[in-house]
């Protein structure tokens, strides 16, 4: 049935978008760092999983245990030694945002360059759990379903951590107003560093899971960055549930356009949808009104 043919693959695709956007929600939405090297970090994690799988025969789900702590550490160092200085230098949030865009843009090229040297420009993929299952008359791959489940579980976990724990509340306070947070005794720099680092950890999860079913190469990071940005901004900056909804929506729209109009127009549809949402609700579907 056509409806299921669009809705199910659309939701699965959307789950992937939500997954790759989760880390950015934290890094941009909370730590206020527009990380343009986001997609490159994601691809780097994918390469990591690939190397572990082909080299050591380690399953991607096991690779997570290794990749996530590494990513958290690297991102924390990145924050500590580059970004924190910019955050201190910027006079206002606008200046900080622009500086962080520019510096992570440089980081993008460094990561991409390292990957190009290590892996060259060709496409890679490997086969893990690519077993077809039939759901409601539509064929789906198990690995994509696993990714979807992970996206949902992590999304809910992050949401609960942000809303139900003390540290989560402090993190949200920093996101709303860093200066006011400082006044009530929150260590803003430490919280931002922590959030940025954990955002990096989520990026690694996204990268590892995606490597199970997607063909990737060293220079396609920017596609992921854009998709993640589209999802985060559409969902409302810093809004985890918004990112989930926006990701699913984007997946369904893309699948529908590919099925009903023209597969060549899916990317155009993404941007058109995104630009449309920005024009009508500049703060995103679930965003707070601009102050």
């Amino acid at each position, binding site marked *: 049935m056509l409806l299921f043919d669009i809705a199910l693959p659309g939701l699965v695709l959307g789950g992937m978008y939500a997954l790759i956007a989760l880390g950015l929600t934290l890094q941009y939405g909370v730590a206020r760092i527009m990380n343009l090297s986001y997609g490159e970090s994601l691809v780097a994690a994918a390469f990591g999983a690939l190397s572990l799988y082909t080299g050591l025969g380690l399953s991607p789900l096991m690779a997570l245990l290794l990749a996530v702590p590494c990513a958290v550490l690297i991102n924390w160092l990145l924050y500590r030694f580059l970004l924190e200085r910019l955050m201190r230098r910027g006079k206002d949030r*606008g200046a900080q*945002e622009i500086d962080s865009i520019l510096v992570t843009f440089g980081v993008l090229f460094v990561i991409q360059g390292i990957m190009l040297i290590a892996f060259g420009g060709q496409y890679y993929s490997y086969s893990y759990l690519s077993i077809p299952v039939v759901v409601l008359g539509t064929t789906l791959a198990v690995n994509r379903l696993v990714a979807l489940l992970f996206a949902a579980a992590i999304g809910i976990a992050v949401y609960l951590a942000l809303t139900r724990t003390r540290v989560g509340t402090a993190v949200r306070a920093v996101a709303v107003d860093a200066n006011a947070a400082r006044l009530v005794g929150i260590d803003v720099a430490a919280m931002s560093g922590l959030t940025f680092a954990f955002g990096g950890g989520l990026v690694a999860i996204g990268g590892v899971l995606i490597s199970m079913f997607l063909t990737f190469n060293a220079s396609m990071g920017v596609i992921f960055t854009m998709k993640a940005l589209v999802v985060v901004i559409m969902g409302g900056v810093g809004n985890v549930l918004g990112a989930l909804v926006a990701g699913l929506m984007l997946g369904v729209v893309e699948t529908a356009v590919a099925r009903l109009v023209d597969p060549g127009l899916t990317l155009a549809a993404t941007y058109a949808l995104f630009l449309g949402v920005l024009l009508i609700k500049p703060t995103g579907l679930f965003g707070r009104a601009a102050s």
Partner: protein
Amino acid sequence: MSATTRTGLWCVALVLGAAIIAFPLYVNGYYLALGISILYFTILATAWAMFSGPTRYISLATVAFFGIGAYTAAVLGETWPWPAVLLAAAAIGALVAGITGLSTLRLSGIYFVIFSFGLAELIRQLVIWYEVNIHKSVGRYLFSAVTQDVLYWQLLGLAALVFLTGFLLGRSRYGLALRAIGADETAASHSGIDATRIKLAIFVVSAVFMSVTGAVMAPRWTYIDPSIAFNPMISFQVVIMALLGGAGSLFGPVLGVIPLVLLFEVLTATLPNHFSIVLGAIFVMIVMLLPRGVIGLIGPVQRKAPASDAVAAKPSTREQSGQLLRVDDVGKSFGGLRAVDQVSFEVTRGQIVGIIGPNGSGKTTLLNMLSGALVPSGGSIRFGGVMIGGVKPHRIARLGLARTFQLVRVMADLTVAENVAAAALFRSAAAGGGETTVELLDLVGLGKMQDIPAGDLTYIDQKRLELARALALSPQLVLLDEWLAGLNPSELETGIALIAKLRDRGTTIIMVEHVMDAIRALCSHCIVMNAGSVIARGAPDAVLSDPTVITAYLGEADA
């Protein structure tokens, strides 16, 4: 500078100019190609900085316009005469910039960055789709009689044009207006600057230069496909170059273009595999170490505020009397909350009217409707016979209604004098010459601080500056929103004296204030608001002893 050194400099400039113009005649193809690269990035980066420098809207849409130009040339190049092709590229670029600018320039910060990047990608996707499905092949060949020499000279002409445009823009009032918008758009609008139109106009001008550059460059490739014409790297490179050089000044970007084009050249030749690592590292270093670009190292650029100072000083003399402002049944709702409910009052010329009331009673909302920041939900506002309810802030400001803000808003990056000059840019001709910037600053006591960036002033001095900026509009009516709040007793005294001085010059004033001593000392008439409605009006002493007013401030008396 003596006459001989000046002649010497002119000679050097002439020789250098001649060398640049004659460049293709004496160098080989390799250096010519390098010269072409430097020129086209110079045009793109200068055009980019023309808009993005002062407004700080980081645009990644450069390649969208560049690609539009290149594709126009590829499609029309073989059938149309070349000048017509360039004009067509300019027109299409302007059209696309106009449409997108109109809808997107209200986005700010990160949203604009992402939008501009998305725009370039969207256009690229659409072109690819069109070529695949309608034209049935993705690439296009462009055989043109344009040689590399001619291409170089075309670019050189275009570069001269972009510098000339930038130079004239910087000297015109639009240049200062654009910087004022970049510093604080709200304050700029309330100073009579039509922010939307100016941003749009300069965005379009900058896009036209980018489109024409694309068209001029097209013959260089002979084969064009969307991934060449719309290569996002171009947008990024332009941003790096402009920022490295310094986007805040006209010749800043070119200082970034030359070293970076040469560096890219060396890198691709010697370290092709490590190109992007080195590029990235350099970029990180630029951002970390040179926040204001190469030109920032040379020292702060002294800008001359545009001509408004030269206007002959003529104290505003207005002896008219009678009604100046009439507010009838004005209301404003936010969702279900009626912040202001059916408020009516009149202000006659030369009067100081006080608006008082507890916090949250709708005073600032009322001022915001008078100054155009908010559109009233109902009722009418008549200012000097003109209906101004729902009119845009810059129009109201030009009519002679100026304001200050409760949370002080100065244009932090502009100097004190520029803040005031920016407000004088578009004041109505009817307002006459008014005072010069210097006189206004003397009036508020900032005469010695003209060249200090407004952001470095103390809070009190920023409030003084706001008042001077409001007065620069030669206003008939000034709205002061808690202008005296936060002053210490001696400052309060000076502040009250200053407002009295304004009244004596014939300026009408509406002041929202919590300092009752000031209300008593200054106001002839007073309006008390509570929960959005006027609950009392009359002379301050009478109003302040009114039991309803006391209840509104202090609550019911204990039984």
